[in-house]
């Protein structure tokens, strides 16, 4: 049995790293009570809340948090016709938060994720670990058998080429979950009682050329390095698929990170995932995805971006053209998705004009 940490009485972190350079993006449809237990670690940071579903519903944000909140009306107002690329009735809408943020780093977390305990019983400051992951280099070109070589107490092993020991910049930090694991519907149906109780004390870089299933529940990234590629696709209302938003983003960002020599890490930190969603509802959402991913995976595995694609936006537009060309035959949905990918980039560039932040 694994329990969440009890954070009552823990003081708010007096030295929050990157306090003014990081936004926390939270999609929600119900309430944000979970933020009460995160106070010691998250209160110093600015929140961007993306309210999905009925915009007239009032979302209560616990006292003491500094936040901006966007509901569907705000999204429509800010993006106009481009709002069509932002999903409705799906947590995929969170990527709107990435777009409106003005910070360098993003941490996104689901509203049913609590603070986990490490094996010694101590509450895990997930955000602090994500920041450490992002600020340390990654090592995608050669696998280090002692995992993250930059962690305290670790290093590169014998035989690790010296020329590769500087590493590359880390674009994404993918955290994990104790208690309810991120299983798909079929697995949930077969193993409804399985809980993840294994605390694997490691961070590692996912090697170049390897794809992975990126979960959006506990995720952080460098918005300057990879932000425009973090589009969570068209899901939910009016769409034939759900629960593949983060997966889609994960495949896109990995191809682009590999192309631009950026690193993606996975492992620590853990959060405590408290709610198992309904597997029957999930099955209906995922159903098409289960078949489609058999085609989608080889597509991404074989996707080759051109030498001329040197910015994230350029890479993403190229990818969208490939999606239209190669996946439309799988289902007309991909034609729409490819268009939405372009709309997303247009919207991103509009809200984040290069001149304003000095980047190409």
């Amino acid at each position, binding site marked *: 049995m694994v329990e969440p940490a009890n954070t009552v009485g823990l003081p708010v972190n007096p030295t929050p790293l990157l306090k003014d350079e990081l936004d926390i993006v939270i999609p929600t449809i119900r309430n944000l009570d979970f933020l009460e237990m995160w106070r010691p670690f998250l209160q110093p940071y600015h929140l961007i809340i993306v309210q999905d579903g009925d915009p007239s519903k009032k979302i209560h944000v616990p006292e003491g948090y500094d936040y901006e909140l966007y509901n569907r009306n705000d999204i429509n107002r800010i993006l106009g016709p481009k709002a069509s690329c932002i999903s409705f009735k799906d947590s995929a809408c969170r990527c709107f938060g990435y777009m409106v943020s003005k910070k360098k780093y993003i941490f996104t977390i689901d509203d049913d994720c609590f603070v986990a305990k490490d*094996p010694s019983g101590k509450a895990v400051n997930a955000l602090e670990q994500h920041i450490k992951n992002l600020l340390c280099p990654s090592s995608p*070109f*050669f*696998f*280090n*058998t*002692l*995992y993250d070589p930059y962690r305290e*107490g*670790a*290093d*590169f*092993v*014998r*035989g*690790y*080429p*010296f*020329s*590769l020991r500087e590493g590359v910049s880390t674009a994404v930090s*993918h955290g*994990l979950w104790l208690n309810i*694991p*991120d*299983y*798909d519907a079929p*697995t949930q149906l077969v*193993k409804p009682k*399985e*809980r*993840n*109780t*294994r*605390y*694997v*004390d*490691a961070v590692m870089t*996912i*090697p*170049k*050329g*390897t*794809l*992975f*299933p*990126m*979960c959006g529940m506990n995720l952080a990234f460098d918005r300057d390095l990879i932000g425009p590629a973090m589009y969570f696709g068209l899901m939910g209302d009016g769409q034939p698929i759900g*629960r*593949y938003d*983060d*997966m889609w983003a*994960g495949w896109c960002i990995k191809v682009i990170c590999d192309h631009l020599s950026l690193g993606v890490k*996975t492992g620590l930190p853990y959060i405590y995932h408290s709610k198992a969603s309904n597997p029957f509802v999930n099955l209906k959402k*995922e159903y098409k995805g*289960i078949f489609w*991913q*058999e085609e989608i*995976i080889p597509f991404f595995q074989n996707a080759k971006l051109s030498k001329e694609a040197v910015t994230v936006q350029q890479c993403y537009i190229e990818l969208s053209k490939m999606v239209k060309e190669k996946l439309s035959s799988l289902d007309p949905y991909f034609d729409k998705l490819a268009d939405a990918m372009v709309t997303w980039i247009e919207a991103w560039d509009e809200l984040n004009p290069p001149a304003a932040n000095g980047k190409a």
Partner: protein
Amino acid sequence: MSSAEINKNEVDIVIGALNADLTQFLTSWRPFFSGFHLIVVKDPELKEELNIPEGFDVDVYSKTDMEKVVGASNATMFSGYSCRYFGYLISKKKYIVSIDDDCVPAKDPKGFLVDAVTQHVINLENPATPLFFNTLYDPYCEGADFVRGYPFSLRSGVPCAASCGLWLNLADLDAPTQALKTEQRNTSYVDAVMTVPAKAMLPISGINIAFNRELVGPALVPALRLAGEGKVRWETLEDVWCGMCLKHISDHLGYGVKTGLPYVWRNERGDAVESLRKKWEGMKLMEKSVPFFESLKLPETALKIEDCVIELAKAVKEQLGSDDPAFTQAADAMVKWIQLWNSVNSSV
């Protein structure tokens, strides 16, 4: 799976003896070596008689045996840490587990001694998943599974060729790193086994390793010998080169290589600073090896392990031979190794 469920008759435990007195080593491993057949191969350059405690089912091989089997000139292939490869050559079993003679069982975070042999065999018996990364690591172990988004067609996995274990206390760091951090000891027990993704290169350490001999035996090549190779791991690279070959061939044939558990406890031995005095030739060789393996494509027609090794040797000679004589020697050794393997194992 527990130790009761693995078939001990399918396993040979091969120990390269670089130290004459194996009493402490074997006594500490007794609970986990018991019931298994042991092959102890004595470093041909070790002068003293081996001291082996009673009660083990063990066959000991020395220089004389090597010369009988492969001839005097080829016996030089098996000096130092490479002596264990002789054990791999003459074994008749499906799985080999090999542990350096300066390692003893480690303790897990609960304080229990780790049965490294059983864990290695479990790793080898279960499929590997090199084609897509599972973020919950080994999907086949108790309490875990494939995560959402993992393609269903890839969930049956592929055969596991090798299981690379890790080390608590003295980790397998190179001499410059250990010399810089003299006090650093590995205390981090990472409770996971995972498959190293296809196309990813890694430094495979020979200190704590197991492999499916039936599947990939010939690919573990005792080939790259550093000039002035020594009797401490800081002064060798034979296992790292062997591992690069093994991983590349495994990728080519669609097999998997796992890393992670089990841990062993590696005792203090040697002096990293002393080892630094030797020319750090290994570093140069690794730098040249990386782009070579990165761009290497074995021909589609190479479908047997032996053919893969021969093709790899050819490519090494062609592309790296002019860079350093060590590579030419390695290529020749690889070809010789396959000849020896075929002649020793042809009657099987």
